């Protein structure tokens, strides 16, 4: 263990040096924030609550996406995922007295978020997890901690200006996503791919006319390729990202809501946004108002 860790250190330092040698090649790296970890956190929670157990345990398992730049992304060589969702996870964990390196990040794809929560595979899901009634019927969702909307990513020379323009055109997104259903309702031909990056490639190739998903993700891709891609159309859906928790642990709702509210008040939320989604050049929006816990 010690050996592999020191090897990893050598590799990391080597990479960092070689990146430094390439001038500013490392500048697009997403920064991460430092969050103050609460001390003696376990004392403030009542016995028998999930928060008490997690705080005493000193570790937490959080499900995030690994394939959405800016939101939740883990490169092949990264140790931990980066993005707005992991930052929110760090804020929540810190309130339990758990430092960032004690968080176990687990990749959750869209289809396994509910089963992971129901079976206790993860303690929280923070994975661009839109709040819906169907989901709230079987798992807990607190939030929203972020509100975004669906937009279109097109080639710079594209004529698409409004949502009506996509009628009859090929529009891609990730197979099975709500975004695809929404553009289908607008008359576009839905084209599902396994990952967002394959979808972006199809837009660049000219095989599809546009890519669609939450605006924040599209801005990330447009920022990577500003000469060839642009984001158009006002958001035409409202996605309210929430934090998922186990249906057997309803007491977590109030704690998540309080912690997020505190983060929005003391600037930790703004900091998390600026370090991640804010990198694409968008202004930091006002933090959304949180739902009441039932």
């Amino acid at each position: 263990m010690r050996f592999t860790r020191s090897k990893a250190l050598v590799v990391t330092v080597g990479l960092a040096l070689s990146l430094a040698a390439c001038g500013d090649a490392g500048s697009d790296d997403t920064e991460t924030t430092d969050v103050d970890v609460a001390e003696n956190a376990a004392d403030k929670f009542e016995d028998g609550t999930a928060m008490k157990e997690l705080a005493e345990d000193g570790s937490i398992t959080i499900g995030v996406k690994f394939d959405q730049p800016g939101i939740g992304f883990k490169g092949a060589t990264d140790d931990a995922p980066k993005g707005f969702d992991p930052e929110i996870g760090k804020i929540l964990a810190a309130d339990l007295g758990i430092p960032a390196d004690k968080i176990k990040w687990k990749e959750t794809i869209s289809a396994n978020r509910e089963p992971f929560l129901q079976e206790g595979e993860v303690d929280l899901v923070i994975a661009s997890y839109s709040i819906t009634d169907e989901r709230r019927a079987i798992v807990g969702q607190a939030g929203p901690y972020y509100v975004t909307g669906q937009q279109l990513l097109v080639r710079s020379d594209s004529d698409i200006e409004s949502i009506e323009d996509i009628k009859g055109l090929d529009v891609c997104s990730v197979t099975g996503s709500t975004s695809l259903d929404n553009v289908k309702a607008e008359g576009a031909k839905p084209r599902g791919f396994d990952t967002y990056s394959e979808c972006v490639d199809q837009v660049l190739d000219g095989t599809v006319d546009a890519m669609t998903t939450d605006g924040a993700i599209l801005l990330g891709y447009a920022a990577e390729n500003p000469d060839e891609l642009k984001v158009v159309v006002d958001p035409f859906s409202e996605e309210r990202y929430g934090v998922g928790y186990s249906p057997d642990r309803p007491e977590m709702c109030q704690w998540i809501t309080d912690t997020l509210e505190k983060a929005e008040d003391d600037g930790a939320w703004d900091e998390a946004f600026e370090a991640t989604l804010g990198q694409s050049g968008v202004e930091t929006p006002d933090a959304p108002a949180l739902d009441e816990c039932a």
Partner: protein
Amino acid sequence: MDAVFSNFDEVLKAFGLTLGLFVVSGIGSLIWGTVLAVFRVGPVSVLNKVAACYVTLFRNTPLLMIFIFMAIAMPRLGYTFNFIEDVSIGGWQVSGFFFRSCLALTLYTSAFVCEAIRSGVNAVDLGQAEASRAIGLTFNQSMRLVVLPQALRAVVPPLTSVQVALAKNTSVAAAFGIAEATATMRGLVNQNGDQLYGIFIAFAIGYIIIVEAISFSSYAIERRLKVAR
């Protein structure tokens, strides 16, 4: 299973696309596979080798890689096959995505069809080919009239397996722009996380119906072609 029934027309449309992929690639692979098999057993040495190379290449490459090549690499090389979008069959427009998926499935499945038919040709008694040559038939004639009919009769069960595999392999297209059954299932699961198992079961039943239909028609063909021994 509420979600399945309230979106039943969507589900039917999705299985329609699955069937479309299966039928087009099934016919395509039977034709191209038979041609390859004739190449492999024929007297022209160059064609022998070409067909053998083809089979080796496509049988050893995972289907997913062939799909990635067809759907993602080819457009980047400038071959989008979008000209096919001018074709429309009975009001339904053929999309470039459908064409590329069928191409990938056909190229892959043909290698297996070729080997199944070749095994059938090997099963035909050598005397049959010699006798047909003796009465003055050319290679084409003896293949068409004597050898292939007997060979095909022997290979109905293995060809059925190949086609059943093809029917299930159409699900790979879900990740390449086709809203077929598996892609639609993922959409329904995403929207109705509370009905996960019901949706899975409904779509599994859909695939079972397709595969059983293939199996039953193959039994029927097998019975009709059976030789009295």
